[in-house]
């Protein structure tokens, strides 16, 4: 293998994550949240709430491969560890803020019916019942959108 082909292979490997599909972070259309930073999104999914909202918020999870990708992208840990994190809270007497949904339709319905929550969807499942928010000032349609 020549150096050029080796570098090409490495660059292709590094490029794979950038080609991953974006995961759209969504809120209720009436929510005051317009955008979040990556840190604010991470804090929200750790149970520390959203900026400028004093209410406890519900964290809507969508089961499947998208959940694994979301956890790695936003929290930097595997879904197994996220599950342990929340089980610990549940059995230690702290609040369980998760709402586990099995289908994108369930996520859309829950988010559209509850103002104090945040969720995520694959791009093709986005519709007008929920509102996508920008992360780090970047909309999900932008190649630089960080949640993938």
């Amino acid at each position, binding site marked *: 293998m020549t150096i050029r082909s080796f570098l090409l292979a490495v660059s292709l490997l590094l490029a794979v994550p950038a080609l991953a599909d974006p995961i759209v972070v969504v809120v209720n259309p009436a929510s005051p949240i317009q955008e979040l930073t990556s840190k604010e999104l991470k804090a929200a999914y750790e149970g520390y709430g959203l900026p400028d909202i004093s209410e406890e918020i519900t964290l809507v999870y969508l089961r499947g491969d998208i959940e694994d990708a979301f956890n790695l992208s936003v929290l930097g*840990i595997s879904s197994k560890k996220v599950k*342990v994190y929340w089980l610990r809270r549940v*059995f230690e*007497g702290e609040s369980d803020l998760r709402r586990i949904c099995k289908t994108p339709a369930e996520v859309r319905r829950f988010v559209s019916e509850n103002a104090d929550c945040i969720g995520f969807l694959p791009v093709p499942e986005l519709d007008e019942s929920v509102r996508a928010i920008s992360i780090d000032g970047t909309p999900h349609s932008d190649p630089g959108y960080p949640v993938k």
Partner: protein
Amino acid sequence: MTRRRWRWALLTPALLALALAIPLGGPAAASDIRIHGLVSQGYMRSTDNNFLADTENGSFEFSEAIINFSTKAGDNLRVGMQLLARDMGAEGNNTVGLDWAYGDYRLRKNLGIRFGKLKSHIGMYNKGRDVDMLRTPVLLPQSVYDETTRDFAHSYNGFSIYANPLVPVAGRFNLEAYLGTLPVRDPNSSFWQSNLRLVTNRLAFLQGANLTPTITEMTVRYVAGGMLMWHAPVTGLRLGGNLIKGQIEGTAFLEGTVPLSEALAGSGLELPPGASSVKGLRSQPFSMDVDIEQLLTASAEYSWRDLLLAAELLYTHFDVTVDIDLAGVPIQLPTEVKWQGYYLMGTYRFSDLLEVGATYGQFYPNRDDKDGRDVVAQGGQAFEAWRENIALSCRLDLGENWLAKLEAHRMDGVGLMSAQLNPQGFDRNWYLFLAKVSAHF
């Protein structure tokens, strides 16, 4: 309407209301009642020494059943409770009790107060010690989370104030300060027995005696504590510490035999003419004052991908004063209980099915006597002064909601182990094997 019909007339709407409030898998209102629970069954077998149960012959007295409820009861107010039944040898015996019950009012987004029966902050893992899903090992590292301390330190009744500030650059902090009292379920549990024995063994007056303490009353006047946890900007790294102070009062008596001729030698006291020893002695009830000067833990955990590394240190200093009237001689005897323990643990998840772990820990019931010289001087064996533990653990996640675990411990020493469970005496080197299956919802 008959009495039975009345009962159903009252129960049916309540059950219906509960059923409608419980989420059954699909989306529901954000403020419904959350219900979680678990059941587990384990088996323990040891060589040479009994560990918490009759483990030399193998014991199934190792189980938990838990159910908890929580709901958002109003703006910024959350309430919850958990019922627990456990069996661990002579302790628990599957009696259902209140494990925790709290009200949690958020004053601001990351500032709130809690009240009720709350879980104690001891190390990073005490609050979840009954929940197998939260860790790889079957037993939490015994050098910091000795099973006999569970009934003592597991939870407190009182109030706490907490905050979770996010400090720019530094990262997230969790802080909690609390004040309350510890419920003493069984004053004659292994914890109190073993520690009172530690105290009485050190009393020069009683050296050479064979006395069993029986605690008739144990009251915790107060406990106060604080917890600090720092989630460093490095993903997966957290460092923390806990400090508990408090005061305990109790009464007890000693029963057994005392060779008074040896004990009184050089004390200035004299035996009645012709008396060389007092056998079958039962002391008058005596009082104990225990000042918890400090129960301190320091913790570090690093989690990266499928790897988890943890290390914790336990350090205690209890001042114990015993006012005892033995054979007509009133004496006030101050002594100290100074534990020290630490462990290092690493776990790694190889696949969705398999996770393995290894733990090394040391525990000293008296850190001023790590080599056991004082214990030998008191008539014991040196290896009662320490417990060194190497454990290998294997966790198998059999499905989304259930798992099995296997674990082997190699032990050197028997520090703080129950003499009552080992009336034949102790052996220094021994092994402990555990298996457990747990399921949760």
